[in-house]
C-alpha cells in the first residue's frame, strides 16, 4: 500500500469541521473552539488531524505549569526565542498568531483552566483574535463558565462522542488487516468499554495476538467470549 487513507473516526471529523468553520469565520465572530470529553475518546487523534490540516501550533498542558511556563511552552512550540517579561512574551505569541493566521491547539486544558494561567489564555485571545482550540476533560465547560470573558468567545462547543460501531470497525480493519473480527464481537467490546476508543484498541491488540498464536483467520463471539473483554476493571476475587 503506497497511499494512506484517513481512518474516518467520528471525533476526528467533528473537530475538523469545527476548526474549519472557526478558521474561515467572518471577522466579527469569536474564534474559540472547545472540545471536551473523557480520556481515551480519541481527542488527541482529532487534535493531530486538525493540527496537520491547518499547520496549527500544539501545546499539551501540565498540572505544574505556572503562567510563565505556559507562555514559554507556546513560544517554544512556535520556535520563537522568548523575550524577558511575561507581557512581552504574550505579545510575541499574539503577534505571531494573528500574523500567521495559524490556529493554536491547547490540549489537556483542564490543568490550566482553574489557575492563573487561564487569564493568560484570555489575554492571548484578545490580543490576537486568532483561532484557539481548547481540548480537555468533561469538566472544562463548567470551569470555563467562571471565566466569563473567555466563555462568551466560544464559537463552537464540541463534545467528544463515544465510539460508534463504525469507528470500531474502521479501527479494527485499519490496525489488523490480516484477521477479520466479526461485528458481533466488535459490538460487544464497544458496549463493554462504553465507547472508550483506547480500551477498544487494547482489546483488539489482545485478540490479534491470540488469533496470531492460534492461527484464527476470523474471530467472533464464538471464539472470544464476553468474559475475555478487557474493561480496565481488575479481576474480581474468586472463592
Amino acid at each position: 500500500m503506497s497511499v494512506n487513507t484517513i481512518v474516518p473516526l467520528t471525533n476526528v471529523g467533528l473537530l475538523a469541521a469545527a476548526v474549519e468553520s472557526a478558521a474561515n469565520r467572518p471577522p466579527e465572530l469569536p474564534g474559540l473552539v472547545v472540545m471536551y470529553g473523557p480520556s481515551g475518546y480519541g481527542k488527541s487523534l482529532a487534535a493531530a488531524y486538525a493540527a496537520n490540516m491547518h499547520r496549527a501550533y500544539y501545546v499539551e498542558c501540565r498540572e505544574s505549569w505556572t503562567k510563565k511556563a505556559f507562555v514559554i511552552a507556546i513560544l517554544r512550540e512556535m520556535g520563537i526565542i522568548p523575550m524577558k517579561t511575561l507581557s512581552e512574551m504574550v505579545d510575541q505569541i499574539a503577534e505571531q498568531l494573528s500574523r500567521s493566521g495559524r490556529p493554536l491547539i491547547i490540549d489537556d486544558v483542564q490543568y490550566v483552566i482553574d489557575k492563573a494561567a487561564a487569564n493568560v489564555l484570555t489575554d492571548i485571545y484578545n490580543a490576537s483574535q486568532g483561532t484557539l482550540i481548547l481540548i480537555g476533560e468533561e469538566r472544562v465547560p463548567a470551569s470555563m463558565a467562571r471565566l466569563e470573558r473567555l466563555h462568551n468567545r466560544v464559537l463552537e462547543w464540541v463534545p467528544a462522542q463515544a465510539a460508534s460501531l463504525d469507528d470500531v470497525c474502521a479501527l479494527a480493519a485499519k490496525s489488523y488487516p490480516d484477521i477479520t473480527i466479526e461485528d458481533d464481537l466488535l459490538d460487544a467490546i464497544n458496549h463493554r468499554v462504553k465507547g472508550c476508543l483506547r480500551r477498544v484498541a487494547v482489546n483488539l491488540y489482545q485478540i490479534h495476538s491470540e488469533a496470531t498464536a492460534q492461527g484464527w483467520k476470523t474471530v467472533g463471539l464464538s471464539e472470544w467470549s464476553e468474559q475475555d473483554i478487557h474493561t480496565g476493571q481488575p479481576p474480581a476475587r474468586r472463592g
Partner: protein
Amino acid sequence: MSSKNVAKRKTLSALAGDVTPRQLIWDAIRHQHLDDGIITMQGIRIALKRHPELSESRISDYLRALMAGGFLVRRNPDAPPATTAIYFLQRDVGVEAPRVRRDGTLPPPPGREQLWRTLKIIGAFTGQELADAASTPQVPVAKATADEYIKMLSRAGYLQTVVEPSPGVPGRYRLVPSHWTGPMAPMIRRTKELYDPNTGAVVYRRVTKTEGGEP
C-alpha cells in the same frame, strides 16, 4: 504615533534554531519594515553583511518569489531603469519565512513536518498508526515513509521503543519528551544522516562498513 512609542516597539521576535538563507532574508525584510517601511536590496545586503555567501542573485530570486506571492510590492514600479527599487511589505505572515515557489504559489507542507508534529501529539504509535494520523487529504503519508522516519529517529535516540517489533507484531514507539527539540522536523539527508534543524546538529550518521575491512 509618538516617537517614544516607535522606539519602544522596535523589537521583533526571533526564530530559534538553524536559520536558513531565506529566513535571513525574510528577517532583514521584516526589520526594515519595522524601521521605516522602506525595503531595498541595499538595505538587505547591509543587514546580511555577515553572510557573504548570500549572493545578490539569491536574494533577488527570493524577492521575486515573494512579489509573485503577493507578500512584497514594488513601490516605484514606474521608476526609470537604474533607479533603486523600493519595496513594501504587503503581507507580513510572522517570524517564519514564507515557503513560496518562484511563481508565487505555496507548496503543501512536507509530510515530514506532519510526521514530526503528529508523533508529539498522539503518544505511542506503530508505523501504520503514525502514518494514518499524520495524513491529510492534501498530503497523504505512506506507511513506508513513517517507518523510515521512525527508524532514523529511534537510532538517533529521539524515540523509545515501547514494544519491540517481532514477526506479525509491529513495533510501538514513543517520543522521548526531552528530545522534542523544537517545531522544525529533523530531516533525513541523502547520505542517510539525520539532521536536526532546531539544534543545527547531525544527530545520527549511518556507519557504512567498507567491504573487506577498513583500509
